[in-house]
């Protein structure tokens, strides 16, 4: 039984709305001549501009490249970028607009986890493909995963696992954690604790801090951590909270003679604003942009700088990769039929802009195996950089397939 | 016959200063009693203890023999006490008719109605009340634009809505031109007499007092210093000294 039988859908929806024709009728791309393939992209542009400006640039760069090469079998890609202002309900409304009025073939984007989840659920309900680029929440592909949703970036679990691998090698036994007080922070802490305890049964977690996102009371928080006298600190704060935390921590000597493992801090987005405050020797996940000198990445970096007059950031690569993955899928499938595209994404392999090789969208849970770089921070001149880094392939930091199957709702 | 109102040893002090100091009096049904005294004598404080706005430090207030000391104003109102204010207080965004209607609806305990439009309720009764105070022709005007004397009469109509046995009128003619004062008070007296309503009022205007009061109480520095028929009070040398002397300033 196939509820997605085109004539059935056409009949029902056509009756109700008189639109959606473009969506409902699967058609071979070539049959459509040179009309652009439209992608709807929804993100929190006004709420998170620091990350999402470079992200959109990266996306545009990939799209321009694809179109310069003749597009998808002769049809150019066209992306409609929309701002959700950080509100999931707005994102869902805009998704409705893009799908119904703008007739986009698929949806992409999402930065905040709850926006990603809302869009994922929208995709499920409306049988639209959604390629989540940024949202880190594990739920997106596991507990709330669905048939229509794929995710590019390494998730909270994966990033935590990468840091645990390094942290487990350290002598530190007494760990304290600090994370923003919302789902991302809470699950990062939970995974870090769980995985580290498994790897090192002798470690002990002596306390935690959960400042409100964007409103850290840095002095008091640093002192509260100091009081715990940990040997290691696991940090999940980012952006403004990170800057304030680091400045107070530096002044008060919180980081002296302590190891710190820190999520995302190696990304230029967060490292660059730190400037001279950049702490030395933190173990971080991130993106060593200036030292990543493989041919693919050098070319991308140069092209990006030539096009936008600035260097790419981690968000740029995420945007670039998302657009590239979508284009790769479209080329492979040769259709904008949702089911065909979903099938095309399962097991899709594309070349990441990092230049570290192929990335696969796993058929198992729709999570891409894109990795991150793990290294240490060091102040060079007036800004911090990542040193002693290596590429941690995402495929190696995912839980066993059996476990994933248990978490993810299985069809049927 | 049970007095309508009995005040017994009322005391109210503000930070050690006794504004009202042991005031006792009674009010007979249908009687018009004026409470007079120079500024700061404690008239308003006394008044506000009778109508429930202030709780006395000591003493009792009885209404028809029932102890109502410390009751909320709205509970006292339900016992059949109507009020007017020194500075008129009406509902500025409602029409004259609706103001009266509110009082009637409240009396009938129909304020929680959510369904029937108020415009259709108790209109006849409200018009009758307006008729009694001579305001029928202004029923549909918003009361925010009424002349002051008309506001006073509207207040009177509202005060009559619960068929009171007692009217408390704080400076009923304050802010009015002298001619209007006597007219308003005559009207009030006529209505009260016709319905057998007792009236307690404070007043500055001695013409109003001596023309309309059946009896006069004189308050000075928180104490009752004289009382009796208007003529007797007017003749009382003590009153002339402390009160009328003060007026001469």
């Amino acid at each position: 039984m196939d509820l997605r039988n085109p004539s059935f859908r056409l009949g029902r929806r056509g009756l109700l709305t008189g639109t959606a024709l473009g969506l409902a009728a699967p058609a071979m791309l070539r049959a459509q001549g040179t009309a652009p393939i439209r992608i709807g992209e929804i993100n929190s542009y006004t709420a998170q501009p620091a990350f999402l400006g470079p992200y959109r640039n990266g996306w545009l760069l990939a799209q321009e490249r694809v179109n310069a090469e003749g597009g998808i079998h002769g049809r150019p890609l066209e992306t409609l970028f929309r701002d959700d202002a950080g509100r999931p309900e707005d994102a869902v409304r805009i998704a409705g607009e893009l799908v119904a009025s703008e007739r986009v073939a698929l949806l992409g984007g999402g930065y905040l986890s709850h926006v990603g989840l809302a869009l994922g659920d929208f995709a499920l309900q409306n049988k639209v493909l959604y390629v989540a680029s940024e949202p880190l929440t594990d739920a997106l592909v596991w507990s709330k995963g669905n048939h229509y949703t794929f995710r590019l970036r390494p998730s909270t679990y994966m990033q935590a696992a990468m840091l645990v691998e390094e942290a487990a090698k350290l002598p530190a036994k007494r760990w304290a954690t600090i994370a923003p007080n919302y789902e991302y922070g809470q699950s990062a802490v939970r995974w870090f604790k769980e995985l580290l305890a498994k790897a090192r049964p002798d470690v002990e977690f002596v306390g935690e801090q959960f400042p409100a996102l964007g409103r850290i009371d840095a002095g008091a928080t640093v002192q509260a951590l100091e009081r715990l006298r940990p040997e290691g600190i696991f940090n999940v704060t980012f952006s403004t909270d990170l800057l304030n935390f680091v400045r107070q921590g530096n002044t008060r000597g919180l980081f002296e003679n302590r190891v710190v493992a820190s999520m995302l801090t190696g990304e230029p987005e967060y490292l660059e604003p730190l400037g001279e405050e950049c702490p030395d020797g933190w173990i971080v996940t991130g993106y060593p942009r200036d030292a990543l000198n493989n041919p693919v990445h050098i070319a991308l970096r140069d092209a990006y700088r030539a096009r936008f007059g600035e260097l790419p950031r981690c968000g740029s690569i995420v945007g670039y990769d998302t657009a590239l993955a979508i284009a790769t899928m479209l080329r492979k499938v040769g259709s904008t039929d949702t089911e065909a595209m979903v099938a095309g994404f399962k097991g899709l392999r594309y070349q990441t802009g990092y230049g570290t090789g192929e990335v696969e969208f796993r058929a198992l849970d729709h999570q891409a195996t894109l990795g991150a770089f793990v290294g240490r921070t060091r102040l060079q001149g007036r800004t911090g950089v990542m040193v002693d880094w290596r590429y941690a392939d995402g495929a190696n930091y995912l839980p066993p397939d059996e476990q994933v199957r248990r978490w993810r709702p299985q069809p049927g | 016959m049970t007095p309508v109102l009995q005040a017994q040893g009322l005391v109210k002090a503000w930070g050690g200063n006794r504004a009202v100091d042991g005031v006792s009096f009674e009010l007979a049904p249908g009687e018009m009693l004026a409470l007079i005294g120079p500024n700061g004598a404690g008239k308003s404080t006394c008044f506000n203890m009778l109508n429930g706005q202030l709780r006395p430090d000591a003493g009792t207030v009885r209404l028809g023999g029932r102890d109502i000391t410390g009751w909320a104003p709205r509970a006292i109102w339900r016992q059949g006490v109507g009020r007017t204010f020194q500075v008129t207080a009406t509902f500025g965004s409602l029409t004259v008719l609706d103001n009266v209607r509110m009082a009637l609806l409240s009396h009938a305990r129909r304020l929680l109605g959510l369904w029937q439009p108020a415009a259709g309720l108790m209109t006849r009764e409200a018009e009758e009340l307006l008729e009694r105070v001579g305001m029928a022709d202004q029923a549909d005007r918003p009361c925010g634009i009424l002349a002051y004397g008309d506001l006073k009469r509207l207040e009177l109509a509202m005060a009559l809505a619960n068929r009171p046995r007692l009217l408390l009128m704080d400076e009923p003619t304050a802010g009015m031109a002298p001619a209007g004062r006597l007219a308003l008070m005559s009207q009030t007296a006529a209505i009260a007499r016709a319905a057998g309503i007792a009236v307690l009022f404070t007043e500055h205007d001695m013409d109003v007092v001596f023309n309309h009061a059946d009896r006069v109480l004189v308050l000075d520095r928180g104490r009752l210093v004289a009382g009796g028929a208007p003529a007797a009070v007017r003749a009382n040398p003590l009153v002339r000294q402390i009160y009328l002397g003060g007026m001469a300033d």
Partner: protein
Amino acid sequence: MSRCGAGVRSRADPALDTLVIQALNGLASASSLFLVASGLTVIFGVSRIVNFAHGSFYMLGAYLAWTLVSHGPLAGLGGFWGFWGGILLAALAIGLIGALAEMTILRRIYRAPELFQLLATFALVLVVQDLVLLFWGPDDKFGPRAPLLRGAVEILGLRFPRYELFLIAIGPVMLGLLWLLFHRTRFGILLRAATQDREMVAALGVDQRLLFTGVFFLGSALAGLGGALQLPREAVTIHMDMAIIVQVFVVVVVGGLGSLPGAFLAALLISELHAFGILAFPRITLVLVFLVMAVVLVLRPHGLLGREPEGAPPASEAGQPLPGPAPRWLRGLGWAALALLLALPPFLGEYPLILLADFAALVLFAASLHFIMGPGGMASFGHAAYFGAGAYAAALLARHLAAPMEAGLIAAPFFAGLVGLAFGWFCVRLSGVYSAMLTLAFAQIAWSLAFQWIEVTGGDNGILGVWPSEWARGRLAFWYLSLALCGLGVWLLRRAIHAPFGMALRAQRDSPLRAEAIGIDAFRIRWLAFALAAAAAGVAGSLFAYGKGSVFPSSLDIPRSVDALLMVLLGGVQTLSGPVLGAIAYAGLQEQLARLTDLWRLVLGLVILALVLFFPSGLAGALQRRRGA
């Protein structure tokens, strides 16, 4: 144990050193908070304007100081003068900007209904947000450390930043300076007099306009100084405005509106509780300030040091009379609109239907707030609590009991109404801004419950899969459902307004004194009205939830409450057509602009400013005036 040396023992004892340092941390935060709050309380005291833009001035102060200190000509000076000169210059510049805003915008709308100025200041917030983004870009900025105050000193063996010590001192110093200003200068004494009695000062023949401009200069400069002084301590970011504004409002209200010592005390209380609170309950960060505010306002309805307004409550400027039956042409227009809403949708695309359903829910939401704001005279800064309660009622039923939409729609008004009864019982006892802020406190407590009680509510990841029943799943069917329910809701509210209950509500608003004197129990009327409005908002919230298919804590957060407030004010509080028009105008504008431009906040802000200046009695008011003319 015996092998522990003396040094180890003292290290292992967390009591004294930690407590002292934590107390100092609290003091430093309190000073920062007080600086900004003092400006707000001074402005409110004199002008009675709820100035949302105060946080924007704080942010501008920080950005401007950053530029002056690290890039301007002053930066060339370097060192002491380069830094401190930049800080002071930034504060002065912000003072001038504040004065300018007062002269060009706010001065024109002092006569507008209460809280209307809030619209204008909110528009400023939007404008400033985009301007800052345009001028300074999205990246966080780190300022240099302060000359002479770098590094740390040792206190009880723990390091404490010198700059924080400086901040600790600056709070009381500023309080002292302000005290001198208010007690020893003519300007200050006039300001104080104006705080207590505006009319009296006008009667004294003082140029009120100068006084108001002066107070905006002073208040804004204090905000700017507060922002600039954060430079060595915190990163400068585009989110600073929103992060601080709610906090300083809490401080000002907890302290007692217009009271400087009160604000100081409140800043101290909140900061110290926070500093110590996180030692014991690290997760309390989200809700602590609101808990404090709720407790303080319940116990002291005018804040810690606030005074009850003297004398009788101000005779509220005569509210406009309830309009009579609309003229025939207008009623005709209404019926025509309804006919259109019924007949046209089958020919519309999916997206217009989605939008229409959204608008329907927002219209009911705004109308429910109007019910207590207009006829009731009670402002609410936390009306989203009931919208969210309705949404969560639907979502929780769907998630935990797999209940169908019909059950959710029935449960929503009851649940939201119950929440309204519970919160309202406290809120309606208070008046004015205090009451509004208490509603905000409760809304934030509800929000943090939705946010943190992950097992039940799913936390910030929300509850997914809240979809309508099969028959209503089509966009067209859902639109008719929305139209029916929201139309019914608005119509019932309208009936209530014209029924004895609504008249009693207006009566207690017009004259509490008279209402009490004719047996109206104002508390009960206000309380029931609050619950009724909450129930209506709950219906709107549940419909909104089914329209989106998911519910998140954002359905009861501050921006959603502010949206409702803006819709009502934009439309006008006088008649029920106000919130209807306001909701459509506000949501429609936002939707259209966001599609047209990245700078939609700037444009939206400018449009709101224009509307505020041209239609100071709201859109519906403008319509009415035209009708009357």
